[in-house]
């Protein structure tokens, strides 16, 4: 009874929840690799000006639909003389560099993925917290509403929202996806609140005279995060896919700004003679979504002590 024990069960372990999480994550190579991919794509998006060799709307006359890994003498508007230029992933029908457009497109995908998820998280958090904490008719009403939103085909709902706006833009896309995708988060938050609100430390807080909102925000909410972080990470992947779908349908970010979904749509008519137009943006979507999903799965495993891999 002298010094507080530092560390947890096995002596010397710094047992803070974040260190624990990191330790468990480290063992899961796949999730770690996925996290690396996520970071890489984030670097691409943030440093697009540095990473991309050309601008996303630079047109190189004489270099229309060049195959990947090719060099061609082209002339950009404003150029005094044509120059030899290298195109890593080829060019599109408008003679724009595909690699540069993919790098800039990462911005759209990540921005929409994150912002839409943030919108979903905000709504899901409020709905889930109130529903779980107050229970009774508030819970019944909020959860039936959640079920109703959940029952709509989400892409269709997002299409409907974006289609009602005159000019689709980034804001409209992430708001639409966010307004549609919060149901899963709300349910997870609610279930967390239901578990936590019966714990003794919450009872202790009420016994001390703390009232509703204080108990919810100070005692319950900080203990919800684990599973919520997991569903949120998985939701990012879903929203990136949703954005690609909307862009593919022409309801996303508008030309000339590139988005992976929009590039896929352009590639459709030309897939026979310009396969690279579709393959590379498609691969990026797959890799990014997969990375977020694997990372989310890894987080879930790391946070759940009962779930051990192999």
């Amino acid at each position, binding site marked *: *009874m*002298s*010094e*507080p*024990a*530092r*560390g*947890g069960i096995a002596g010397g372990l710094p*047992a*803070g*929840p974040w260190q624990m999480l990191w330790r468990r994550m480290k063992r899961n190579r796949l999730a770690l690799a996925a996290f690396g991919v996520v970071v890489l794509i984030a670097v691409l998006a943030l440093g697009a000006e540095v990473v991309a060799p050309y601008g996303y709307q630079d047109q190189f006359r004489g270099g229309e639909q060049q195959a990947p890994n090719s060099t061609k003498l082209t002339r950009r508007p404003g150029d005094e003389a044509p120059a030899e230029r290298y195109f890593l992933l080829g060019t599109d029908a408008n003679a724009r560099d595909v690699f540069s457009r993919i790098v800039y497109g990462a911005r759209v995908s990540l921005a929409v993925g994150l912002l839409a998820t943030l919108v979903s998280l905000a709504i899901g958090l409020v709905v889930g917290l109130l529903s779980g904490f107050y229970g009774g008719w508030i819970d019944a009403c909020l959860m039936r509403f959640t079920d109703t939103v959940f029952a709509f085909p989400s892409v269709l709902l997002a299409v409907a929202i974006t289609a009602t706006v005159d000019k689709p833009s980034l804001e409209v896309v992430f708001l639409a996806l966010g307004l549609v995708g919060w149901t899963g988060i709300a349910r997870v938050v609610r279930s967390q609140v239901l578990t936590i609100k019966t*714990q*003794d*430390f919450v*009872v*202790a*807080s*009420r*016994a*001390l*005279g*703390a*009232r509703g909102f*204080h108990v919810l925000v*100070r*005692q319950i909410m*900080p*203990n919800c995060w684990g599973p919520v972080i997991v569903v949120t990470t998985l939701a990012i992947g879903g929203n990136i896919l949703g954005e690609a779908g909307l862009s593919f349908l022409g309801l996303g970010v508008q030309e000339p700004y590139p988005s992976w979904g929009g590039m896929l749509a352009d590639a459709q008519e030309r897939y026979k003679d310009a396969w690279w137009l579709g393959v590379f943006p498609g691969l990026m979507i797959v890799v990014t979504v997969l990375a977020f999903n694997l990372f989310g799965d890894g987080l879930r495993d790391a946070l759940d002590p009962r779930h051990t891999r192999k």
Partner: protein
Amino acid sequence: MNDTTPGPAPVKNGDALLEVRGLCKYFSIRRGLLAALAGRVKAVDDVSFSLRRGETLGLVGESGCGKTTTGRAVLRLIEPTAGTVRFEGTELTDISQSALQPFRRKMQIIFQDPFSSLNPRMTVEQIVGEGLTVHGLASSAGDRRGKVLGMLDRVGLPAQAVDRYPHEFSGGQRQRIGIARALAVDPSFIVCDEPVSALDVSVQAQIVNLLMDLQAERNLSYLFIAHDLSVVEHISTRVAVMYLGHIVETGSTKDLYGDPRHPYTRALLSSVPIREPGAQRTRQVLPGEPPSPIHPPPGCPLAPRCPIARPECSQKLPELEEMGAPDHLVRCPYVKDLPVYEKAGSVS
């Protein structure tokens, strides 16, 4: 139990700090789409007791008998179904939660599980200081920290503990943090909900001693809920035995342990191991399991398992009757003339 008329007062005393009469808590079991009432669990049924300043009432009984529910209903952490709770002369059961606020300071609770009772995301300062903030008992952040440090010192924790998180402490230390939290608002009554049953025996003694020292120092009253009969004997002034939501016997610790009357109390006491190598005790084992509180047996809840049950026992629940000594109440009319309980193997 059909009526909820209050039983006779265990203590006829005007200066009782806490006076509980006919306390009931029924939980409704609802099933199906329209939440039809499928049954009721009478977790606490017509429980009455009172507590004076500086006194400890031990509440014993096996798991699921309603001890914890009683403790929480007294504090209105669970809304009682019926009954009254008077604290310092004020009726607490019919006032609003906001009117209850000043009493939250005076009535506190200590929990069984030292792990789930502390918020893992809060520092010790935040945990112990929460009550100070809620009730405006600290004039500034520095004042609050000072008061928390004083509290930690009193419960035997080092000052460095103040900025640490609960997971950095052992079970006994965590229990001290829980005691400091309850004590920080300077209460006069504390519900101790099995405060030592999750701890090692050596640590149990330390915590029990701490609780008794604090009681002597601050004239605290405890409602000490436990299933460990030796601990209860050590700390309690009076003891009440619960079975299936009812108090079956209550009396001073001396009377209850020296002259137990109710068959359930006797069986319970005979289950306590004897601290004497080789000592034998004639154990009274009750056959069967406690019945489900959803479908309690009619009449006396012990009747199906009782060694001295008669047909009448299943007709009507007996009242608490005074037997042997004043304030020694027993809910069984057939044990008045029992031979004195032989406390086999007891060394004293």
